[in-house]
């Protein structure tokens, strides 16, 4: 199965969720700011990459995890994906899309804007990491839900 965590830019909340899913971040303990900042692709994907799915790793069931920024076009991109799967004759359930944009809080938006739009990596990256760290429990819950659903789906 392919799991795509998507958000606006594909560089903050989706990276965080994908890192938890692939075991790069703990499912129990809240990570330090350094751990978040050092994550692959964290606050490093620039706006020209929005739209491109980026491979992030594999989980314990060898599902492939991707991150993707969809900008404001998430509805269109989802329909395109559905259409593409039909065209290729691939079962729609082979892909699991998870929207992580709902966990983007105001500090993350501000930090992301400073870093990615204005090029102010410092302090933007730190503000975004602080914002995400504060809502870390939400990401854990989301990833747990996803893992539960895919394990049920794989049993069926």
């Amino acid at each position, binding site marked *: 199965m*392919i799991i795509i965590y998507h958000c606006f830019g594909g560089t903050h909340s989706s990276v965080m969720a994908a890192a938890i899913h692939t075991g790069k971040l703990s499912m129990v303990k809240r990570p330090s700011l350094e751990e978040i900042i050092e994550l692959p692709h964290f606050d490093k994907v620039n706006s*020209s*990459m*929005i*739209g*491109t*799915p980026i491979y992030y790793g594999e989980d314990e069931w060898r599902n*492939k995890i*991707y991150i*993707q920024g*969809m*900008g*404001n*076009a998430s*509805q*269109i*991109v*989802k*329909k*395109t*994906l*559905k*259409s*593409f*799967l039909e*065209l*290729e004759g*691939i079962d729609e359930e082979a892909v699991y899309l998870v929207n992580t944009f709902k966990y983007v809080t105001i500090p993350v938006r501000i930090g992301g804007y400073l870093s990615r739009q204005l090029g102010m990596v410092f302090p933007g990256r730190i503000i975004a990491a602080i914002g995400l760290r504060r809502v870390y429990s939400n990401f854990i819950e989301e990833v747990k839900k996803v893992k539960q659903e895919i394990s049920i789906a794989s049993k069926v």
Partner: protein
Amino acid sequence: MRIIIHSRKIATLSYLAVELFKEQIRENELHEWLNYLINKTDVKVDYLSGELIYTGKDSTGNELFLLERKRYKRIVCKAITGFKQIFHSKEEILFFDLSPYENNIYFRLKRVFSYLGLKNFYKIVEKKGLLLIYPELSTNISHFKRKINP
């Protein structure tokens, strides 16, 4: 090979591009073709943005698709290219962008008349717009086809 003809909105212009890819239009029958296409696409269809709409094959056997992608050209094209890589699709995908033609003043006027419900006016201006862009669109599609099938 798959050719995706993408535009902000699917309209008569999109179908004209399809017919040009299929090489079904003869210069001396251009007016009849345009009238036919305008009347054919007059029935308002709400296309689901993002859907790949299959429209048949061109003269060299490439599959043609229409795609309405609103103003998210870059994001949607990158996403399709990415999905192709993820699923190891063997079919090559090429994009043909109609946005340079969509900005034609007649098409803008058409949209205004369309919103106002002035059906006869918008059909006239749409035809004028299509006639105006036809030579350039036709040449560009021929170049595009020659590039992919030298």
